[in-house]
């Protein structure tokens, strides 16, 4: 097996939250991401799904070093991204780019497309003349389906889908190895989503990109990813190959997530749906043992005692990692 492009091991992001209930109370710790490990191969797509507030976006920001991880390690091509100096960090960032959820908010309203898409070039390819930079930007715009004659326009003159294309163009102009997509289609119209997802897949094939694709929409994750990681309260609860995970989810939380997707078939039985009840517990004060036990239909008394770890389950040549005492 080839060397993984990205290796995340036991990554932790904890935030200290001042306790406002009384003066001088000890600080509380919010474990936004708590010991997540995974590997990503070149050209592969990993989907990350989970409820709002389960740490998906924080995980993305920690990989990008936009928030400092409090523990664990992120390695890109075998080189740790933690503890790099500014110059090394800048070089590493060239390999990892990001696409954000809100396409308009991710674009500076005072800059033209030329300035926005060309900005990474001004950082990493200083030798380019203004004319060469402009040509590169126009080529990239055409590649993502934007008419190059709009190069002098401003973001507010575009629709949401077009803005997301601009974001994609900015992320890809340096030809990175890894693009982290933080819910890139959640804010878009359903009819536009497919276009953007297909564009991403097309560009991935052409440029050999690895993608980390964060989403709520399970259909889209299934469509785009080879592997999927399911997160709950800052922890990975199940990692497996996309199709197999959809057809036979093992972790009760994954089962609940998948059965919550509305079915296109009106006659489908709703009898054996696993309905998720209650809200996500507060990450400030997670349940003891298995964090999911408060909402789990399989919960047993011993689930409250020890936290389950990811255990490999082999099944018909597929390896599935599941963190549950009852599977």
């Amino acid at each position: 097996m080839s060397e993984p492009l990205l290796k995340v091991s036991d990554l932790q992001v904890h935030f200290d939250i001042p306790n406002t209930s009384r003066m001088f109370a000890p600080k509380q710790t919010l474990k936004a991401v708590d010991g997540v490990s995974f590997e990503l191969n070149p050209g592969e797509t990993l989907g990350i799904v989970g409820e709002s507030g389960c740490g998906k976006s924080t995980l993305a920001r920690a990989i990008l070093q936009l928030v400092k991880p409090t523990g664990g390690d992120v390695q890109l091509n075998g080189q740790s991204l933690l503890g790099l100096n500014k110059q090394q960090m800048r070089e590493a960032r060239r390999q990892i780019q990001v696409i954000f959820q809100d396409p308009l908010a991710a674009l500076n309203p005072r800059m033209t497309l030329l300035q926005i898409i060309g900005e990474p070039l001004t950082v990493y390819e200083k030798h380019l003349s203004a004319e060469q930079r402009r040509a590169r930007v126009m080529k990239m715009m055409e590649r993502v389906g934007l008419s190059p004659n709009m190069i002098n326009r401003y973001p507010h003159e575009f629709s949401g889908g077009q803005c997301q294309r601009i974001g994609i163009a900015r992320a890809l102009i340096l030809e990175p190895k890894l693009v982290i997509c933080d819910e890139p289609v959640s804010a878009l119209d359903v009819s536009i989503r497919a276009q953007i997802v297909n564009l991403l897949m097309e560009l991935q094939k052409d440029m050999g990109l690895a993608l980390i694709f964060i989403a709520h929409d399970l259909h889209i994750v299934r469509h785009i990813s080879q592997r999927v990681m399911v997160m709950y309260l800052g922890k990975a609860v199940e990692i497996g190959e996309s199709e197999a995970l959809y057809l036979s989810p093992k972790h009760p939380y994954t089962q609940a997530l998948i059965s919550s997707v509305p079915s296109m078939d009106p006659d489908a039985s709703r009898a054996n749906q696993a309905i998720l009840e209650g809200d996500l517990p507060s990450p400030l004060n997670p349940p003891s043992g298995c964090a999911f036990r408060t909402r789990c239909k399989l919960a047993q008394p011993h689930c409250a005692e020890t936290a389950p770890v990811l255990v490999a389950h082999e099944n018909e040549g597929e390896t599935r990692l599941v963190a549950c005492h009852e599977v």
Partner: protein
Amino acid sequence: MSSIIQTDAAPTQIFPEDAEVLKGRSLWDDARNRLLNNKAAVTAMIVLGAIVLLVIFGPLLSPFSYDYPDWDNIYEPPSVGDAHYFGTDSIGRDLFVRTLYGGRVSLMVGVVATIVSLLIGVAYGATAGYLGGRVDNIMMRIVDVLYTVPFMFFVILLMVVFGRHLILIFVAIGAINWLDMARIVRGQTLSLKHREFIEAAEAGGVSTPNIIRRHIVPNLLGVVIVYITLTIPQVILIESFLSFLGLGVQEPLTSWGALVNEGAEDMETAPWSLIFPAVFLAATLFCFNFIGDGLRDALDPKDR
């Protein structure tokens, strides 16, 4: 089940090679159009423009200089015949020329002191806001400490130590005003800092000074421009106040504040020596405030 996704993407568009490059309409263009549709602001700009032109070129229309005492015409009421258009003061100096010279000083103090406070305040506030954390805390506590220095005491101290000089007024007013600017800019920066385009720039490896320069400052400009137009009249008023107390410009040079002060003493015998400078001062302040309001509406239409 996944029919949404299997819809084909829009057919790959073919873009003609020689398509004309379209011109973008920036937020500034929009703002300019909105400002030009605001009658009060346009009128204020015209009046202010006229005042500025008059202040610069007006003295050429009069045969007198601002410090020449016309002993034959003390307390002369306004008259066109002997070229004392606004009359004369208690020692026969021509009030038309003095009002315009006073305007030069007042406007110059307003503009220069505001620019001083702008440069210091924007750089300081944007840095504190963007870096945040401990740096921000220390920088803003310094501002808090400077706020506690009493302004009049500070000015009197400067005058006593260095003597009365026009530059000292710029320094004194600029040194006080940048504190407000720094606070406003810091607040705006804090709200901008967590916008996604800033994170995108960080992830794209853009260096901190470049993020502040390219992403933070241009997005601050709207607020800053509005604040400038409201600061200039404030500074003119502070200068008038200092002159009124006798701490401002040195005779025979004058300012609108100083002229109003002298005029107030002779109000009963020579009302023209109060009316003309007061009208110029008030008109200028009104204009700046109208322009400021117009700019605020134009740059931030959501806030209306």
